[in-house]
């Protein structure tokens, strides 16, 4: 995407952050205890979007296990029985390709969103963000706004402080346990799980509920932004997918500087000031505790809360919005308009991602639609190659694993073709229960001497009786010398 005027070398769009004036010359250690971040709550367009995503994702997550589909849970990943129920689908380990497809689609979606709009996933949809948001909301409700929380934490342990902290922990633990319970409910039927847990049965299930509950509590209550900053692999490689036309949260220094406080209705431009009034609201609302005015930093999760904060202030000052806004590197550098920026969204990289993504989604849906709910594996007996049986017949023996992937009992008819006079000598019809598989010994015979010595390709046809389901599997028929 580089024009000839630009240097060929890719410049990583990260600018050194200006330090606090106090830290220059200070003796620092390579490690330090983490400073706790006290994000201020803010309302606005992006805050609403974030909450919308919280509701959307959590309604699905907490709600889905409670729906029934016929005689079973609608979405259930039964690891013990190795059956995966998703709405009307029953998937088996043999359908692993669909999981692979899903993961590839997820990865490509991540590439696409990141190329277009930076760390959208991180800011709006990632469970880490969503649960942190929920836990911070609880904290905010119980302990109050940022300043109140700071006062509370720095203050002495009064009865009031103990009461608030205790109450907060109780609510946090309750939400975390419910989250763990819901998560395990995707793998164990949730209604039974509930009654089992109340009776303290099922050691492993209790363990996993506690495990995922603790993970939620620890990550959303305490680790928060540190997961994104120090642990998350996505965060590390998403920055590699940015280019100069990727939408990022930007501060417009040309417009904002010289920053400084001023009175309203003063001709601040005459004083040599820019639009930034240095109220530091954008820093206070930031969930990862950075100052966006120092440029794009690796910690930024692109949640847009500083945009909301700054727009609120700009409205109060009656300055135009957008001192901090979603824009691109090129957009800021070349003073582009919105439409110029959005025109660059449809660049080859994005189009290729989109095309591959659409193709994959279509392929996946198509293969799910035409999927046969029947699986057949043919295993030739390896030792007993062939034999002569009474009646002058030559016989080969196979074991067929027939797997009924429907949810009702089904009769299957086995036939074979590929050689003259080939017939199934064993029982041709087998009954297989719902979502069960059986090994069936099948004997094929041809008249002795009707085929040349060696191996001949044959095909097994397994046809569901009274249904259109039908599978063909290849094997070989051996004729001895």
């Amino acid at each position, binding site marked *: 995407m580089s024009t000839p005027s630009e240097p060929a070398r890719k410049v990583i769009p990260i600018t*050194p*952050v*200006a*330090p606090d004036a106090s*830290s*220059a*010359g*200070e*003796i*620092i*250690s*390579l*490690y*330090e*205890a*983490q400073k706790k971040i006290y994000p201020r709550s803010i309302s606005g367009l992006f805050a609403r979007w974030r909450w919308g995503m919280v509701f959307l994702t959590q309604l699905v997550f907490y709600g889905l296990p409670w729906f029934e589909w016929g005689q079973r849970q609608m979405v259930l990943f039964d690891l013990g029985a190795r059956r995966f129920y998703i709405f009307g689908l029953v998937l088996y380990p043999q359908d692993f390709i669909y999981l692979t497809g899903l993961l590839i689609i997820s990865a490509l979606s991540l590439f696409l969103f990141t190329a277009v709009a930076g760390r959208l996933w991180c800011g709006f949809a990632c469970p880490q963000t969503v649960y942190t948001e929920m836990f911070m909301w609880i904290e905010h409700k119980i302990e109050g706004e940022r300043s109140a929380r700071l006062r509370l934490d720095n203050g002495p342990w009064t009865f009031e402080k103990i009461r608030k902290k205790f109450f907060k922990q109780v609510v946090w633990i309750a939400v975390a346990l419910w989250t763990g319970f819901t998560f395990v409910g995707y793998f164990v039927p949730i209604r039974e799980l509930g009654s089992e847990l109340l009776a303290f049965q099922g050691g492993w299930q209790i363990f996993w509920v506690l495990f995922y509950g603790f993970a939620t509590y620890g990550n959303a209550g305490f680790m928060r932004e*540190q997961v994104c900053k*120090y642990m998350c692999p996505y965060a590390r490689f998403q920055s590699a997918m940015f280019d100069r036309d990727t939408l990022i949260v930007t501060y417009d220094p040309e417009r904002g500087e010289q920053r400084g406080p001023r009175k309203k209705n003063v001709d601040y431009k005459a004083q040599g000031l820019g639009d930034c009034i240095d109220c530091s609201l954008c820093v206070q609302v930031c969930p990862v505790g950075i100052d966006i005015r120092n440029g794009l930093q690796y910690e930024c999760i692109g949640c847009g809360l500083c945009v909301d904060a700054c727009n609120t202030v700009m409205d109060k000052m009656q300055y135009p919005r957008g001192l901090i806004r979603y824009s691109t590197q090129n957009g800021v550098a070349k003073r582009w308009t919105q439409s110029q920026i959005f025109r660059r969204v449809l660049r080859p990289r994005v189009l290729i991602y989109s095309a591959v993504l659409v193709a994959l989604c279509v392929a996946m849906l198509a293969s799910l639609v035409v999927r046969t709910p029947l699986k057949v594996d043919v295993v030739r*007996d*390896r*030792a*007993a*190659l*062939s*034999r*002569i*049986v*009474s009646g002058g017949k030559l*016989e080969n*023996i196979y*074991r067929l694993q027939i797997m009924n992937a429907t949810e009702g009992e089904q009769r299957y008819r086995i036939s074979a073709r590929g050689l003259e006079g080939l017939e199934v000598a*064993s029982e041709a019809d087998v009954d297989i229960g719902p979502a069960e598989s059986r090994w069936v*010994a099948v*004997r094929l015979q041809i008249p002795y001497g009707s085929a040349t010595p060696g191996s001949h390709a044959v095909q097994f046809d397994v046809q569901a009786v009274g249904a259109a389901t039908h599978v063909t599997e290849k094997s070989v028929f051996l004729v*001895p010398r």
Partner: protein
Amino acid sequence: MSDFTSNFWSVFVTTITLAGIIACGILLWMAGRKKVAATSDNTTGHVWDEDLVEMNNPLPRWWVWLFVITIVFGLGYLAAYPGLGSFTGKLNWTQKGEYEAEMAKAKTELEPLYARFASMKPEDVAGDPQAHAIGERLFMNNCAQCHGSDARGSKGFPNLTDNDWLHGGTPEKIRETLEKGRIGNMPPMAAAVGSPEDVRNLSHYVLSLSGSPHDSLRASLGKPKFAACAACHGMDGKGNQALGAPNLTDDIWLHGWGEAAITAMINNGKVNQMPAQAEKLTEAQIGVLSAYVWGLSNKQVAAR
């Protein structure tokens, strides 16, 4: 350590492992004590490769504690489990031990089940659905390699589903076969029969016994030669289960059918072996298995 001629490698591995862990600990300690003066552009002043500067982004302290925990865990693990050369670890854990423990556990779990089968008559065990399922699995794992997964055998391996038995088909006889194995021995008889032409005639006579297609002139010429065979197969050719000599008058041909196959058998003889299973399987398993095999040819009694 039995694997090597000296304990050099054991010492070598132990030294490298421990030195590596200790080196990690020292590195961590040194890095933790290091102090640098922050510069005004928020870097540590550390420049590498002309333009790579290390920025002042201190690692969180809990991350360091995680590192310490891994070192402690590693040392604890090496003390408990094998990992330091030939040192077996305090817990004396071995893969073989795990396997044996699991097998012993499975055995104790299955004991009451097998005890119930042992107290039943073999004919009843054959009819028990649970025993049938166990028998089928045992058969698939231990017998199907030769007798085929449907137990119908193939050339050289007897069919177990018909009523033609070389050594007898009672559950007791089958059990004996399973435990001790069998050697089927047909000596080369060409010298006792006579010329190659005699052998061919005899083959046709043998074919005539079961009413198979044959040359009746050759068969009548070969008939007197059958005296050499009658010692084992009987004058009427109906075989002898005490010797394991097959019945020649039925339509079942273990080692091939037709003049060529029979001629080859008379000329060369055959030693056929069923291996003994007493070493591989427990007595209880052999009991269930013999009932299962008996049930294969006695469907009216056996389950399903």
